[in-house]
């Protein structure tokens, strides 16, 4: 991260349009990202997934819940069903397309919960220091003692399995990484001259945190959030696969994969295809995360 003062995190048009010699931090980062071939592949995959999710009703060849009684467990290539049907005769392509909505929704909400909670804890712990820091970071240690999926399962056990609870569970499990990384950033930033200067002219703590420290901690948060999307999507699929996530008949990739397990011998495509969809999406976010890491902060 550049150590110069950035008072605001917003991308202003002037900075974007400025010639390369005086281009802003974000413009430099974007230029570097564009040259990162793997990241661009990731971005393309993600853009494709987002388009599918947004325009699902227009793209999908069929209703994801409609049952074709004449063709249950039809293999890919069957007339009217490009990727075949599942065991009860629902179009798999349609269900995969609508499945993007579940995955993205869970990813965005869970990452939103994790990033806002973790960032707040990290900012407060790092800025306040002392006892507050100690208590908050020991809490982080406790949460880190539980494997991600185990804690998520325990939370689901309490809340009950459904889409909203899956988002909450994943969010409540994933915040610790943000807290640790942001705290580390704050410890460095709070001793910098521009923060001392702000304090000297009487800026309130809250304002220093929000206007000066947070914008300068954004780079690692963005990287973590991108990779976090991948983790959240896998976690949702895993919970749904175990029957603890999104409940049927809603098309979630994890649920679809689980439903196909009983038909592996006769119709292996029912389980294979959703797995490929999960893998492609996760690969997209991991690729982009890799590129962002290089572009935003070579030291990360």
């Amino acid at each position, binding site marked *: 991260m550049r150590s110069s003062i950035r008072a605001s995190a917003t991308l202003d048009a002037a900075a974007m349009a400025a010639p390369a010699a005086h281009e802003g931090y974000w413009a430099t980062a974007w230029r570097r990202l564009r040259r990162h071939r793997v990241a661009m592949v990731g971005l393309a995959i993600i853009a494709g997934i987002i388009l599918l999710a947004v325009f699902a009703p227009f793209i999908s060849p069929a209703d994801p819940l409609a049952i074709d009684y004449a063709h249950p467990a039809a293999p890919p290539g069957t007339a009217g069903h490009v990727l075949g049907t599942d065991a009860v005769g629902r179009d798999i392509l349609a269900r995969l397309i609508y499945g993007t909505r579940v995955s993205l929704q869970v990813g965005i909400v869970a990452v939103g919960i994790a990033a806002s909670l973790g960032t707040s804890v990290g900012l407060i712990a790092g800025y306040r220091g002392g006892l507050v820091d100690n208590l908050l970071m020991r809490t982080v240690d406790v949460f880190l003692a539980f494997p991600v999926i185990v804690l998520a399962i*325990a939370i689901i056990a309490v809340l009950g399995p459904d889409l909203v609870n899956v988002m909450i569970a994943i969010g409540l499990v994933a915040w610790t990484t943000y807290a640790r990384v942001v705290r580390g950033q704050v410890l460095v930033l709070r001793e910098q001259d521009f923060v001392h200067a702000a304090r000297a002219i009487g800026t309130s703590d809250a304002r220093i945190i929000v206007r000066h420290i947070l914008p300068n901690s954004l780079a690692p948060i963005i990287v973590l959030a991108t990779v976090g999307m991948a983790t959240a999507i896998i976690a949702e699929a895993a919970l749904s696969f175990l029957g603890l996530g999104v409940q049927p008949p809603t098309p979630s990739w994890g649920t679809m*994969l689980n439903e196909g*397990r009983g038909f592996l011998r006769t119709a292996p495509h029912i389980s294979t295809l959703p797995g490929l969809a999960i893998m492609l999406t996760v690969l997209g976010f991991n690729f982009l995360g890799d590129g962002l890491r290089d572009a935003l902060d070579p030291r990360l």
Partner: protein
Amino acid sequence: MGRFIVRRLLAMIPLLFGITLVVFTILRLIPGDPVVIMIGAENTSPDEVARLRGVLGLDQGIHVQYVKFLGRLARGDLGVSLGSAEPVSRLIWERLPATVELTLAAMAVSLAIAIPVGVISAIRKYSATDTAGTVVALLGISMPSFWLGVMLIFLFALRLGWLPASGRSEAVSAGLATLLTTGSPAMLITAVSHLILPAVTLGAGLAAVVTRLTRSSMLEVIGHDFVRTARAKGLPGRRIILHHSLRNALIPIVTVIGLEFGALLGGAVITETIFAWPGIGRLAIRSIVQRDFPVVQGVVLMIAVVRICANLAVDVVYALIDPRIRYA
């Protein structure tokens, strides 16, 4: 060294407290009266509920309940299963060996693949082997383990019929003991054949991570002066790689392996469900479905404790293999 271990053990105490608090809170957060959940809504008379509340200690303050919970925990008492009325600790102890066996096998499989591939990738940087290794590792990181498990069952159990699709026969250690005492390998072969697919499923993700790490760690070490010195002395290449480079490159790998051990335990929950492996993960999932909360609580607690013990073990090993580290 002794002082270091003592200090790390003392640091574990607040962590253990925190873990028990989280686990205790989870059980108290369940909506509804635990007694009603336990005996079912249909056969609740107010007298019966009040009596059971007294028996379970639920009529006391929450802080009293927590202290009593800790007291029982200290004696190894994790409560009683609502489903089978068996002690939770016994249910867990019966199944723990299966989970440990699976986890260790997964770790062995992943290291057996990852370290050689990582070393070769580093020695032949940017070669076809390196590129192939990198691509496979990236795919491995992005692949959901439960999907891999289902695909392995499809290929090796259903299509080729080489390995059993699910279940566990005997412990591998028991099979080994039979081989040594009676000379009959049949039991060991059956045990191992059941273990292969679950172990590969669970270990694949770790293998991908460790491959990447071994490669980068080796690349860094190979660039150091002492490696160049070894080469200048005319030592054979194999000795430089194995003795001088790999030994040093292993330090960060040991850390990651320790940290990932906990993740493997978590992953075992999923793998055990796919392969009907009779371990604590499958117990946890079944208990959630049956709303058998004391068992869920016990398993979660057990996994967290095993995990922090593993982290401690890693710190100690770390200090042993790297004399520079003493955590002053």
